[in-house]
């Protein structure tokens, strides 16, 4: 017997103490945060970005989740490693910040990428997108998912790299509307 999917509803404006309590300093645990890799990892990278609304304003009440493979392209099949969660409400610039490692290719000709799940007030159903890396230009050219995206929109999925004293920092802004509107996927 088949049943129909339970409908989605918005995460609303008050998710912080339920889903990201430690980040927002509420007395409740949280299952995942922005530290996908800890500070003992030598090849750690940082991913930062904002979620911008249709008027280009940073959204301070979004929640971003990341799911990724490890540096060898292996997904965790039995635990939670590779999953991160951050609200945009604790950074003065409404940024999300993830510290992690760059994943390897997961096969199928895919370039290294992270899956992003986006939730916020005003979003009745969550959205999926992907973060690719600007320094993987050759792999990106061969990626079948990027190939499904019109060429002029592919750049919305590519994080740009900046090298800092603390390692590479990749910037990935999510634009909900307008010029450079981020590509979102359905699967």
């Amino acid at each position, binding site marked *: *017997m*088949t*049943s*129909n*999917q*339970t*409908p*989605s*509803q*918005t*995460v*609303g*404006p*008050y*998710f*912080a*103490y339920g*889903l990201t*309590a430690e980040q927002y300093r*509420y*007395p*409740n645990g949280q*299952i*995942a945060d922005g530290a996908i890799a800890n500070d003992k990892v030598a090849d750690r990278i940082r991913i930062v970005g904002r979620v911008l*609304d*249709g008027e280009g304003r940073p*959204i301070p009440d979004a929640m971003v*989740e990341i*799911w990724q*493979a490890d540096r060898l392209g292996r*997904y*965790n*099949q*039995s*635990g*939670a490693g*590779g999953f991160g969660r951050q609200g945009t409400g604790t950074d003065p610039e409404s940024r999300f910040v993830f510290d992690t490692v760059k994943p390897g290719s*997961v*096969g*199928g000709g895919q370039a290294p*990428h992270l*899956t992003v*799940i986006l*939730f916020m*007030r*005003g*979003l*009745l*159903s*969550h*959205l*999926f997108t992907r973060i690719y890396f600007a320094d993987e230009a050759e792999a990106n050219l061969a990626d079948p*998912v990027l190939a*499904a995206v019109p060429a002029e929109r592919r750049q919305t999925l590519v994080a740009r790299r900046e090298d800092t004293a603390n390692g590479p920092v990749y910037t990935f802004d999510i634009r*909900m*509307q307008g010029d450079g*509107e981020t590509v*979102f996927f*359905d*699967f």
Partner: protein
Amino acid sequence: MTLQSTSRRDWGSHPPLLHPPYRSTSLRAPTRPLIPIARSLSESTGPVYGHESVRPLDNDLTRNGRVNGEPLGERIVVTGRVVDEDGRPIRNSLVEVWQANAAGRYVHKVDQHDAPLDPNFFGGGRCVTDDEGIYRFYTIKPGAYPWGNHPNAWRPNHIHFSLLGPTISSRLVTQMYFPGDPLLALDPIYLGVPESARGRLVSKFSIDVTEPGFALGYVFDIVLRGRGETPFER
């Protein structure tokens, strides 16, 4: 390695991204259509959070926020079965919940509704499904509260749910409502759901779940995206 290959999101069941009566959607809904992609490992895997991620009082919101007494309001027990579209139980899977207190006030610091906080109620919790896919938690029935969407707008009583399911494709954030709530017919968030699917968000009162002398019982079953296709091996 066996992978979960999930069926697609059923947009006949989920709310659209742009729903003008819910005003916050206007600047936050993408204007371009979603781009369909084939599922790969990236979409067919997901984090596993089970019993080890839950602390002893996490499933009892009537106790996990106590400071100097019991929270005020109507004690309830909420339970239900989490299954996929083929009716298979989703086992050992994390359910996170959060809600307003009995007066309709959230602990969240941006909630400025002029209703009292309850020093003995926090409003957040989590539980894990068992081998039959059943979850269960105790709480206080949340109150309705006003919001700024339109003049005299009030949210119906609701509890927020976040479910991870077996893969990121089965990820679901939703809200559970209560039967007979007159605000449902006026709520643009609830009404954003296609009409034929709305009833799935309304819990059922159950005298069988109700615990004598202690708490009224509500049942809220949840269906996550199923496999839809023959699982593949590699």
